[in-house]
């Protein structure tokens, strides 16, 4: 920045560290390609800039709340749970939730099995049901270590699974997406669905934590 005010004061002009804006980083190959393809599709009239913006807004607006509603319903309705374990997308439609066209399956935590989801090859994730994935889910560290030393990874999330409970890691390598149906916490007998859904976090539907306990 230009420094042209009169020097009648003696403050020291020490440069201070600052965080560069994103725009100051060099663009990566894929950023350039993404921008170029987007611009071309708009220019050719495949979709408009407004349609692109609206789609991004819709994707950003997805949240774990939809998944949490499904989990709460499954906890109070055994028939719904059975349908959800068979086909999450169909069960979601029953609750007026659009889980998209990519098939999603739920895997159930029980007293014998604790499930955790990872995508070692990229970052597959049931976005339309539980929102955008956290950055750590996409990290090389989570993706490589969860298959290699799942109990250590879970412990870093504060989750200790007893040795006699099977830790089952699901690697979403192909056309399906997975979510965990956590076990209903003790002490929630008689709770309504809304109160139950509040106990269900994004992370417990990935399987790195358990649902909150009542009163915590």
């Amino acid at each position, binding site marked *: 920045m230009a420094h042209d005010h009169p020097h009648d004061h003696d403050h020291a002009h020490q440069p201070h560290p600052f965080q560069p804006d994103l725009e100051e980083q060099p663009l990566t190959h894929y950023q350039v390609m993404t921008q170029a393809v987007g611009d071309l599709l708009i220019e050719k009239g495949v979709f408009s800039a407004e349609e692109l913006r609206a789609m991004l807004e819709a994707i950003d607006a997805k949240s774990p709340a939809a998944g949490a509603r499904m989990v709460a319903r499954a906890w109070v309705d055994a028939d719904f749970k059975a349908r959800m374990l068979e086909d999450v997308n169909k069960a979601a439609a029953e609750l007026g939730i659009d889980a998209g066209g990519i098939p999603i399956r739920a895997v159930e935590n029980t007293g014998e099995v604790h499930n955790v989801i990872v995508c070692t090859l990229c970052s597959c994730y049931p976005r339309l049901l539980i929102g955008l994935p956290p950055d750590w889910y996409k990290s090389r560290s989570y993706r490589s270590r969860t298959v*290699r030393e799942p109990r250590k990874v879970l412990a870093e999330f504060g989750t200790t699974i007893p040795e006699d409970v099977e830790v089952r*890691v699901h690697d979403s390598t192909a056309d*399906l997406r997975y979510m965990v149906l956590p076990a209903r916490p003790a002490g929630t007998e008689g709770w309504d669905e809304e109160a139950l859904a509040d106990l269900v976090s994004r992370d417990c539907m990935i399987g790195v934590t358990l649902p909150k306990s009542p009163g915590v």
Partner: protein
Amino acid sequence: MSARFAVGDSVTVRAAFPPGHVRTPFFVRGKTGRVTRVLGPYRNPEELAYGRSGEPALPLYRVLFRTAELWDDYAGAPGDTTVVDIYENWLEGP
């Protein structure tokens, strides 16, 4: 295409290392597991990745492995398991 394997079948993942886009993780290649679900036909991602049709579709399976058999020095519990979705062209019978 009808599925060659059924739930409960023992299957071994081919120990192949072809170049290009492959969706079978390295850590299960050459390993033996058990089919827990037949997911149905899905277009071949190794073809789709190059703009081809991916047809004929391939049966896709959920295959469960004992995690201790995937990693020599696995430090978790002996009962721990890993489930991977694998296309039929990567699987061999016993």
